[in-house]
């Protein structure tokens, strides 16, 4: 049974698992790494590409990414050119479903006179077509389609270009916010996130079972939805599994979220207008597209970094490894103020590969409790949660409506973020707090979640209800 939505994730997982096995065994030699392709793609018929030799060549590239990728490039998202299938970029096309009807709605809908009917078949004049899509909507037979590459379609940051000569996709570094939408959406797995699993495993091995130093796992709030659809696997069993990998302790990043909500409420009152800083892709989106608004980005660390700071204050020799749904977190970890706090970032996909490499079966484990955060910290995993938490924090701090009237706007996904930022840029925004989540649905829609289901939000909320601490103040009191 697969843990994933699609087979690209499965392939990534198989490669990561093999590399992780070598890393745990301290056998990361060039020779052993060369063997991975033959293990993932055994002799026999090709499953994915024209032949097993191409499949193996792609696996070899994936192994490099699993080892950290091109160190000269800072972006954590990279294109695997060999894996890019050069999807057609033909724009709007009339398919054979065109019946050559007599209504000619498509012709009439076209604002550029780009369509004519020739021999009872609609024909598009490419030199005139502006790809507005009105003909697509007008056709009674759904016979007109638009061919956009799935990666380009997914990238709402407008950071992907097609190389005209090679037809391969390329990342526009000045636009890319490392959100990873293309990584999840490319049907050929040609855009990938660099992996730091070998760094994580080295930290675990060097800690010698937490005798030399302790290794803390900080798990993102969206942990709640990762395995929720599998009845035999509980969150508490996964905590046991993470400890079996060699971690000393597992802590909810949601506790960091409680801390962030508490101090962000103060900052909001102080500044009067604020945009959230929890989502690193959202922060990058502002920096790259709305430089004038950068001063309004909250100065708060993200929940991950905030909690890591508390851990390091108490245990300066300890190492912190974050495990989450997010690719942009890998980029956040490279920031000056974060890299000393967080030692490594893994995704849920990568966690699963580590567990597989160690032969840990989640179903068979005993349970270890996980309970650090409040309800409000836990709901940061889904859109709207951060806003609810900040409103709650203001209430708990007894800041009345008269003192400060908080009007939050929860932006679900990059399109809503863009609209809000455009308004804010022109001072036309009615709200005074922008919660920006680049992924649809919030972190539960993150590109490195194991699965994406419409029930995820409900899973997060019901996990939130199980929190011992009912208020943010109660959860953060232990830090006073």
């Amino acid at each position: 049974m697969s843990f994933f939505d699609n087979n690209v994730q499965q392939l990534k997982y198989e490669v990561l698992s093999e590399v992780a096995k070598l890393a745990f065994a301290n056998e990361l030699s060039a020779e052993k790494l060369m063997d991975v392709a033959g293990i993932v793609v055994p002799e026999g018929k090709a499953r994915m590409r024209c032949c097993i030799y191409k499949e193996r060549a792609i696996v070899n590239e994936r192994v490099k990414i699993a080892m950290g990728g091109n160190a000269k490039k800072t972006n954590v998202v990279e294109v695997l050119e060999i894996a890019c299938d050069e999807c057609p970029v033909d724009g709007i096309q009339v398919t054979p479903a065109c019946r050559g009807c007599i209504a000619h709605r498509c012709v009439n809908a076209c604002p550029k006179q780009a369509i004519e009917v020739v021999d009872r078949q609609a024909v598009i004049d490419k030199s005139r077509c502006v790809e507005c899509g009105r003909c697509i909507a007008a056709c009674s037979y759904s016979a007109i389609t638009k061919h956009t590459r799935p990666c380009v379609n997914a990238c709402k940051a407008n950071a992907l270009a097609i190389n005209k000569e090679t037809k391969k996709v390329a990342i526009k570094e000045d636009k890319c916010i490392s959100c990873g939408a293309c990584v999840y959406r490319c049907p050929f797995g040609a855009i990938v996130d660099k992996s730091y699993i070998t760094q994580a495993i080295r930290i675990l091995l060097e800690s010698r079972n937490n005798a030399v130093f302790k290794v803390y796992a900080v798990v993102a709030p969206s942990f709640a939805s990762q395995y929720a659809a599998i009845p035999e696997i509980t969150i508490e069993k996964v905590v046991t599994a993470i400890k079996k990998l060699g971690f000393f302790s597992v802590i909810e990043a949601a506790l960091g979220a409680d801390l962030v909500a508490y101090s962000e409420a103060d900052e909001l009152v102080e500044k009067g207008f604020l945009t959230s800083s929890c989502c690193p892709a959202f922060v990058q989106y502002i920096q790259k597209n709305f430089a004038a608004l950068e001063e309004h980005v909250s100065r708060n660390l993200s929940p991950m970094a905030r909690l890591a700071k508390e851990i390091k204050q108490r245990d300066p020799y300890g190492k912190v490894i974050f495990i989450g749904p997010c690719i942009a977190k890998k980029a956040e970890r490279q920031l000056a103020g974060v890299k000393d706090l967080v030692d490594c970032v893994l995704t849920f996909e990568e966690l699963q590969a580590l567990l597989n490499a160690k032969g840990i079966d989640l179903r068979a484990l005993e349970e270890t409790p996980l309970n650090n955060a409040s309800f409000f910290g836990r709901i940061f995993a889904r859109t709207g949660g951060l806003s609810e938490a900040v409103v709650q924090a203001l209430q708990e701090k007894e800041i009345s409506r008269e003192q400060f009237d908080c009007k939050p706007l929860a932006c679900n996904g990059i399109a809503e973020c863009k609209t809000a930022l455009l308004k804010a840029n022109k001072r036309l925004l009615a709200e005074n707090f922008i919660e920006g989540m680049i992924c649809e649905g919030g972190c539960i829609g993150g590109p490195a979640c194991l699965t994406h289901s419409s029930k995820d939000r409900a899973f997060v909320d019901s996990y939130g209800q199980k929190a011992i601490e009912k208020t943010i103040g109660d959860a953060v009191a232990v830090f006073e």
Partner: protein
Amino acid sequence: MNIYVCIGSSCHQRSSYAVMRQLKAMIAENRLGNSVFVSSAFCLGHCAAGVTIQIDDEIITGVGMGNIADIFQDRILAAVR
């Protein structure tokens, strides 16, 4: 004197937050705020042994609301007075 109260998940579920509040209250009541400092620890590594606290270098397990007053009397108050 430094006291660390474990706030890891196991201890939290066994009411370590309440233990911490109680300790702070007793310290304030006895005006020891300048000599006894309470802080939290993420995990003291005794997850199966009830709430764990650390008084300077000494680990005490099996702490709870039922015995925290005695521990305060015997181990903390006695030591600082």
